[in-house]
């Protein structure tokens, strides 16, 4: 009898010790359901590893006719290291949920997901890509802002007028993955170091090899690879959910 009692106690203790502490998330009481979830803003941001993104991610739950639905439950999830505040919420009167996102500690591309359920309790998902720059890409981003954007960025503001329209051969924006992903690292380094003529291209791209160091140019290439859209496959890490 005693042995049985001891055995039972031991097993109970063992089970208690082994069981994972499960965090009890307070389930959301959705008052409505939608048929689609769409991005309002906040996708494809360029942030820094381990840091919150500049802009929050805003998603909207719509009904069949494309109008925002209030009171639908939206859940955010992402690869390990990504945090959301809040991680789940009900949509507001305009059908939107806003969440501040902080990326993980590794540089690369993070696929995050916002989901909601429709009337038949089927999950509808929305995937968003966010980019986290590491040290080298950050150096590249800074150099880009100092030297490159004024011709390579088509966006023009009163503070920083784009020179792109003044050039007879239009430079490629660095996000233009369709073109730049086909170029090898060596070609990119060559064209940055020696200018357009190095690859039989326009001399309007000047040589930077006598102004920037080799490390600077490697940093620029890693930045160009990091922001490419569609993503650059060879070097760009993709962090998706496990």
């Amino acid at each position, binding site marked *: 009898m005693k042995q049985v009692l001891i055995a039972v106690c031991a097993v109970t203790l063992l089970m208690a010790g082994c069981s994972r502490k499960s965090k009890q998330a307070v389930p959301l009481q959705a008052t409505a359901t939608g048929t689609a979830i769409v991005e309002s803003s906040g996708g494809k941001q360029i942030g*820094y590893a*381990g840091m919150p993104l500049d802009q929050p991610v805003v998603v909207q739950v719509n009904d069949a006719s494309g109008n925002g639905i209030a009171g639908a439950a939206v859940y955010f999830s992402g690869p390990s290291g990504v945090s959301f505040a809040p991680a789940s919420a009900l949509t507001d009167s305009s059908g939107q949920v806003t969440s501040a996102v902080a990326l993980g500690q*590794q540089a690369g591309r993070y696929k995050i997901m916002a989901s909601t359920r429709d009337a038949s309790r089927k999950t509808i998902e929305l995937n968003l890509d966010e980019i986290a720059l590491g*040290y080298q890409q950050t150096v590249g981003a800074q150099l880009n802002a100092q030297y490159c954007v004024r011709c390579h960025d088509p966006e023009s503001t009163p503070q920083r*007028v784009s020179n792109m329209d003044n050039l007879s051969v239009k430079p490629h924006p660095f996000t233009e993955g369709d073109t730049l992903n086909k170029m090898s690292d060596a070609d990119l380094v060559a064209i940055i170091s020696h200018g357009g003529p190095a690859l039989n291209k*326009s001399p309007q791209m000047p040589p930077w090899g006598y*102004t920037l160091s080799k490390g600077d140019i490697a940093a620029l290439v890693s930045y160009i690879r990091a922001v490419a859209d569609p993503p650059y496959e060879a070097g760009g*890490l993709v962090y998706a959910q496990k």
Partner: protein
Amino acid sequence: MRNKLHALWRTFFGDSARAFGSASVILLLLLAIAPAKNYFSQWRHYQKQYLHLIRGRADAVTLERHFQGGIQQIWMPEQQVTDRCTTCHLGLKEASLADVSPVAFREHPVIPHKLTEFGCTTCHRGQGAATTVEEAHSATEQWEQPLLPAKYIEAGCGQCHLENQTGTPFLNQGRQLISSSGCTHCHTIKRADGTYIMPDDDPPSLKHIADKTTREWVYAWVKDPQAYASTATMPNYHLSDDDARDISAFILAQSTPLEPPLQPLKADAKAAADPAAGTTLYGQSFCASCHAMQNAAGMMVGGNVGPELTGIGTKAKPEWLQDWVANPDHYDPVTMMPHYRFDAQQVATLTGLLESKTEPDFLANVHLDNATPQQIEHGKRLVVENGCASCHEINGIKKPENFAPELSRIGSKPLNQLIFVEGVEHTLPGYVAGKVRNPRAFGPSLKMPQFKFTPQQIDAVTTALLALTDRAQSQPPTMRIASVQQSKYQPAGNAGQLMRDLRCLTCHMINGHGGDMAPDLTWEGTAVQHEWLTQFLKNPETLRPALIRRMPKFNLTDAEINTLADYMMTVYQTPEFDRDSLPVSQFGTAQVEQGRQLFYSKFACQSCHIADYKTDKGYIGPALAGTGKRFNAAWVYHWLKDPQALRPGTIEPNQHMTDDEARALTAFLMSLKSGGAQEAMKK
């Protein structure tokens, strides 16, 4: 049960031989505990896992050759580094392991330093000598410094790099915020190289405040500075109505009239206040280069060197505005604002415009009775307690010394010296960020006011503060990249007097002293021609079509212009070469033509510069259509050969031209003698 135990005892310890044998076995087992513990240790587990990981890979042979078993250690006593991190983090140097899982075996992201030269804990913190995951990464009772969260990692760089780095935008931003928010008015921060972080927010003196504004405005301002101007840098002290009333009473009571006193408002000022003319003059004088103002659409337009002017009419008295616009030196001899030398009509016009920029709502509900002596006395106590004189000059109050705790080693502060409150993470970064975010959450009686930072700015300031560690202070000086200090350069003589009056150094850098809004003038005398400089000072033309901020026109006399031009041409010369060493007369037509070819085809200079307003559109660099009238040929030649040598940091790339190419281009550029943009437009 009892019988069974008894039998067991007899089996092992029945006689002396059995007892001896059993005791020996037990002793042996006890002795085996230490080696067993070692054998089953966590780091061995990681090394086995790593070997398992690399065996399946194509480059297994290379990786296995690099692998060394056992405890690894990076040991640098003079840098206080004893890091065994590489015992488990085995792939840090393996480029082919950039994307493996688990993360522990990944290649370290590219950084400019070698792990073997700096170790790991220098940047990441944590307990380097530990060999378990828990002890190495987390805070324990014996070790208070856990791993630094990735978002503050640039604090690691800031321990040695006291100067800004390209790769550390947040550290740079945090340091800039510490200066521009005036943190170091109250907190002393001594860098490891012995220099101090100086505030650069320039809070105004309150000695003659009653000449400038009303008690009602002071009351509303100290209650909530951001309600007056969203860009205000003064923090919010969360004062009660009574406290604000008494502080305003005391400050105004201490104010003395200016010497000589303010002139009464000129009778024609109101009449001259033609809003259109005022706006035009405001634009022509490039006030917006330094001052921001909200436009009709609610957008903030302008710079942040001077205060925002959206509600200036509510704040400043008309007589004061008139005096200030005429000559700011009278009220504030150390202001950054230049003395524009406006004529009486211009002063009246600008005063009228600024007076019309009001925010009536700001003072709508402010009604103050005359202050009683008790209120003034109480106000004085509050001013002393809150340390107002740390930032502002106030008659009768001495600037307090060490008003707030010194922060030179805040990044290594032991946690037991800190008081945590609910909702603040129990770590040093958590404490620092919490304090920057909301100081009064740590106790309503704390004096530190509420600054207006965005979450991202809070992280940046925290990063900069966490860089101020014991390690930074105590490591060998050879590890340090010292901070660059502004020189104390001031131009001399009559011209120097004039340049101080015009506040040239607010925008221009000369010999390492000055602002960064406008070009460095250290070698201007070598670069330009006397005639051009004279004309430019008389009437500044637009040199860079894409810039909003431009050189304002000061109403200088011919004599003043000559003094300035002569001084600059004589003193601001580079020792590297003589400005007359390349006479234009030696260039032939063929050389000019060769230069034109190079300009338009080989170097495609027209991408960024304008040589001919009719055909060229590039507007990154300055327009070059008037080069022949503006520059000296020797300067142009040396600039083309190596722009960074003449002006470090300029974005013009070094094109590695041959001497002949540079000479031909110089010949072409020196042949361009058309006027400025305005003149070209007229044609």
